[in-house]
């Protein structure tokens, strides 16, 4: 088709006139029927007009399509990273699953796989996030912590139980595991013993993004920021060399968002972190292509539907542009940002708790409309406790209903071309870029965190939202509006199985006695030597060597703390 510039200009003028007329009509109409709200804006505080038209699209609509929208699987990947998207392969249905003990976690994972889950997602309990072993936590804290949520993996014995009968050479496994990544080391050590080559192992180190931890999720912090960063980069280098199908670093927006960041801030802080990591990896001698290709992302799944979809579309486009244009990465794979989404727990309510099923459906729908590659859906009871079996099956079936019944997965990027969504995608991109440049000017993410900039921005957004909820600018059904008298919800509060708890404590204690102590000590000594820079080597490789001779999680973390010290961030109030 030849572009007839004259007719475009003519149509543009005509449309402008029509819009002016319509706006007059609208003003007349709202003088009689006033708008419901004083101002319409989304959670990123972007003001929203009553209607969007081709006039809101930057440049002309064709050039905008070519430059900003494009095609799925092609630069700038606004419409998705794969050419076929969900028409060939649905997003990976991957729900955080593990509670109680390795035995119970194994059972629940098998149940979920039978119910149609296509990926595995294993959370960590707070004890192991603090780097503690089961027997140690029972003694120093309280036995009640063991098995309360997440399953503990102290040693190789525990991971053998967890993964028993699970085909890890066929299915990808994500672990929430803080640096120094003991659980991941256990996974690789287990694979080797099973004779599965590391080159075939698929999965993600889900908590390697130390910047997001320092900004907003203290749960994964064991070491000072600089040491934490070194462990992340070192793990990345090891995976790049040894485990080509493993994702060593997922940049995490979900933490920032759950701590209070707006969607624009979430995109900005996540990608700024990614940029900072790529820079550091390049400084260490890696090509930008390799660095970029091994980074994936993890975003929050929020209920504001169109903003959610636009957020993911914008994030993919910004990443593609920066990797291609600023880092000069050459391989198109380096420009693609694959993303996992976890639906927002903060948006769930303990009031009228079943309403959460509807919330999760909308959050998941937004993720799918945004082209997520992998999805965790929360269970409705997660506002109160860890998910019961019944609730978790509903959460998984919600994904099946979306993929099989709703039709949303049948056409790629079905919101593409919506004047509103394209405008919003551009708007989020622009606002996020402003933050990204600001962080660059500060010297990158590490500096921005040292200055407390990111933490303060997030704290302020969280507090602003709280105020909006208090004055009802933001309505939360059942919380600040539509409150009804209700009885205590019937929730199955999970209880740790005391027999299995005892068994695990005894298991770890038993290993401490049975193993070859000399090997344990020399492995831990070597770990300390490498960590302190006195010996050449990769720290993560040595963590694998340690778990192989039955060092426990607590011993490995303890050894590294002797070298690095403990990390404790500063609290920033708005």
């Amino acid at each position, binding site marked *: 088709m030849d572009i007839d510039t004259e007719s475009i200009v003519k149509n543009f003028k005509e449309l402008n006139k029509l819009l002016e007329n319509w706006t007059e009509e609208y003003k007349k109409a709202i003088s009689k029927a006033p708008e419901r709200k004083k101002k319409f804006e989304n959670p990123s505080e972007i003001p929203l007009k009553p209607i969007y038209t081709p006039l809101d699209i930057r440049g002309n609509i064709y050039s905008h399509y070519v430059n900003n929208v494009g095609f799925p699987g092609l630069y700038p990947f606004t419409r998705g990273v794969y050419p076929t998207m969900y028409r060939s392969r649905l997003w990976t249905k991957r729900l955080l699953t593990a509670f109680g003990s390795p035995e119970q976690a194994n059972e629940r994972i098998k149940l979920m796989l039978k119910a149609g889950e296509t990926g595995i997602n294993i959370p960590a309990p*707070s004890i192991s996030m*603090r780097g503690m072993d089961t027997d140690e936590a029972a003694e120093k804290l309280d036995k*009640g912590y063991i098995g309360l949520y997440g399953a503990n993996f102290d040693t190789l014995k525990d991971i053998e139980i967890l993964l028993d009968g699970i085909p890890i050479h066929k299915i990808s496994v994500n672990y929430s595991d803080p640096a120094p990544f003991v659980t991941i080391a256990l996974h690789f050590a287990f694979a080797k013993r099973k004779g599965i080559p590391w080159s075939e192992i698929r999965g993600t180190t889900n908590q390697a993004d130390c910047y997001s931890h320092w900004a907003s999720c203290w749960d994964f912090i064991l070491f000072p920021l600089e040491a934490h960063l070194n462990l992340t980069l070192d793990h990345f280098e090891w995976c790049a060399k040894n485990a080509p199908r493993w994702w060593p670093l997922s940049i995490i927006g979900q933490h920032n968002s759950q701590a209070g960041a707006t969607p624009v801030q979430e995109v900005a802080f996540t990608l700024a972190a990614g940029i900072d990591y790529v820079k550091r990896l390049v400084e260490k001698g890696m090509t930008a292509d390799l660095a970029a290709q091994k980074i994936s992302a993890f975003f929050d799944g929020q209920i504001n539907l169109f903003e959610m979809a636009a957020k993911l579309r914008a994030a993919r486009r910004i990443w593609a542009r920066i990797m291609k244009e600023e880092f000069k990465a050459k391989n198109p794979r380096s420009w693609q940002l694959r993303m996992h989404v976890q639906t927002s727990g903060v948006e769930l*309510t303990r009031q009228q708790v079943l309403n959460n099923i509807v919330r999760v459906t909308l959050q998941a729908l937004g993720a799918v409309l945004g082209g997520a590659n992998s999805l965790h859906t929360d269970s409705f009871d997660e506002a109160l406790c860890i998910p019961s079996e019944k609730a978790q099956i509903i959460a998984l079936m919600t994904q099946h209903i979306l993929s099989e019944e709703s039709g949303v997965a049948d056409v790629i990027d079905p919101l593409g071309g919506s004047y509103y969504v394209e405008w919003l995608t551009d708007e989020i991109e622009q606002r996020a870029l402003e933050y990204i440049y600001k962080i660059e000017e500060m010297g990158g993410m590490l500096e921005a965190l040292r200055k407390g900039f990111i933490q303060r921005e997030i704290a302020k957004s969280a507090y602003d939202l*709280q105020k909006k909820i208090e004055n009802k600018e933001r309505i939360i059904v059942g919380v600040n509006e539509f409150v009804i008298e209700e009885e205590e919800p019937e929730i199955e*509060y999970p209880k740790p199985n005391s027999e299995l708890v005892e068994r695990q404590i005894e298991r770890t204690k038993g290993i401490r006695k049975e193993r070859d102590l000399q090997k344990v000590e020399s492995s831990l000594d070597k770990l300390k030597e490498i960590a302190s820079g006195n010996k050449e080597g990769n720290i993560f490789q040595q963590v694998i060597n340690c778990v192989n001779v039955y060092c426990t999680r607590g011993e490995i973390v303890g050894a590294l703390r002797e070298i690095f010290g403990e990390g404790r961030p500063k609290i920033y109030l708005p």
Partner: protein
Amino acid sequence: MEKGGKILLAKIGIDGHDRGFRTIAAKLRDNGFKVILLGPWSSVDEVVNTALQEDPDVVGISTLGGDYLLIPKLIDKFKEMKLDVPIILGGIIPPEWEKKLKEIGVKKIFHPGTDLNEVVRHIRELAFKKRG
């Protein structure tokens, strides 16, 4: 000081989710309270020692991820040190534990989604009572 009182806010135990903790701290500060903060991973002893030094009117503990398990130890320690300061909690606590904790002396437990103005009113009352 006249408007509010002095509150020691702490997160004890091992959980690190501090959004609620930060938000309530800011809310109390903006309502005229002097707020002393002890961030995530504080130990029972740290809370006790800070309470001894600072003499707060109220002690507020944010508990998520099972950290309510440590509250009985905290209350025992308060009694042992003859610290007569009301303790309140906020966070997610299973119902049977709520009952137990109230029985052993926790003054009030706030759930997620509570109107923060109500929380402030309540704390102000406790502080007022404490100071006589």
